[in-house]
């Protein structure tokens, strides 16, 4: 019995040895896996954006665009992020929403700005979406919901339905609880580095929690994303009371931004 036992160890060992030796070669570089992934993501991002662009109205008002750009610039500069990696689009829609698309596209609905009295809360939401992009959550979510093969077929031009389905998934708040929390924590880090108070973001989430139905709150455990109240609580826990904060844009710019959006409606 001793001989077969040794032979079994040798066979298993030889497999692991071959695996180990093959692992020494950089296949990712050789097959350009990351480059191909980035190309696919960019292509998907363009497709999703075009699909949204055809059904929604994009804001082209300079005051609005410049104000939002100033907010993003402040976050990027203070956090070492490359502003060119993000393509921000503002859409005229009363829904209180902002979401990320593949390829660094970020969609902000005007409803998010009109619904918020405090600009730091909007900055917080933007930081949250930037975090989703930076942490590669968007592709993870799409692959999980739609599947890699379906996404690849969409990039080859044969998946109109996949694009529609993906847009629906991305605009809903269906990120995993762990991914949402990860993005929240990263957003607080961005805000703190930019000297922007995270508290208004927490207050905004409390406000959303108040608007959520009692049913959703009681079924918290089956929800795919953390209930806003729970998120607000861990944001508050991260706040450093010693830090001195200042908003990303001046109050007058913020007021001008709100007026311009109201005029659009």
């Amino acid at each position, binding site marked *: 019995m001793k001989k077969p036992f040794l032979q079994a160890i040798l*066979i298993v060992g030889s497999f692991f040895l071959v695996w180990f030796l093959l692992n020494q070669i950089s296949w990712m570089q050789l097959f350009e896996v990351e480059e191909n992934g980035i190309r696919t993501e960019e292509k998907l991002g363009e497709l999703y954006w075009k699909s949204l662009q055809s059904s929604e109205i994009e804001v082209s008002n300079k005051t609005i665009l410049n104000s939002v750009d100033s907010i993003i610039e402040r976050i990027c500069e203070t956090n070492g992020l490359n502003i060119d990696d993000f393509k921000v689009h503002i859409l005229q829609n009363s829904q209180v929403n902002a979401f990320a698309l593949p390829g660094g596209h970020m969609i902000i609905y005007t409803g998010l700005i009109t619904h918020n009295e405090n600009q730091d809360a909007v900055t917080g939401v933007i930081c949250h979406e930037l975090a989703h992009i930076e942490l590669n959550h968007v592709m993870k979510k799409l*692959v999980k919901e739609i599947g*890699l093969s379906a996404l690849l077929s969409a990039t080859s031009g044969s998946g109109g339905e996949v694009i529609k389905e993906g847009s629906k998934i991305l605009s809903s708040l269906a990120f995993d609880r762990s991914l949402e929390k990860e993005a929240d924590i990263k957003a607080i880090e961005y805000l703190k580095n930019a000297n922007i108070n995270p508290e208004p973001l927490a207050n905004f989430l409390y406000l959303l929690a108040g608007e959520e139905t009692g049913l959703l709150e009681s079924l918290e455990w089956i929800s795919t994303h953390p209930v806003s109240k729970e998120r607000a609580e861990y944001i508050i826990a991260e706040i450093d009371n010693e830090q001195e904060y200042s908003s990303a844009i001046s109050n007058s710019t913020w007021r001008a931004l709100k007026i311009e959006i109201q005029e659009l409606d």
Partner: protein
Amino acid sequence: MIATKEFDYEPGEHESEKASNSYLMSLVAIIAGLPLPIVNLIATFAFYMGNRNGTYFVRWHCTQALLSQISMLFVNSYGFWWSVSIAFKAEEITNKYIAFILAAIIFNLAEFIATVYTAIQTRKGKHVTWWFYSEITNLICKAEK
């Protein structure tokens, strides 16, 4: 790794054909069962069950064919579910994954070539024994007294 040895007796034409078929069974099942690694094991097992009361030569080779399938099942199943989690879940393609799949392909290819060779030789009535698997087969398969 593979050796042709003297068997206890000279197998007949019918025996050689059945013994050789046990290897062919696993080959045919590899093609049918590529997406699901368990399929070729089930096919070989079914053939084994059908021939477990056969002559010693047939039983011996059916057992060796079955055992060789079991070891690859672990590697293939692991690779299969790893691939599924990349295609449908949030798992990402890593260097480790590519290396594993390549190692699995090398081992499967080696097993495929060995199986084809053994099927041909067994059909000629030769007793082909595989390193390790023949030892286990000898422990499981006892000659009729």
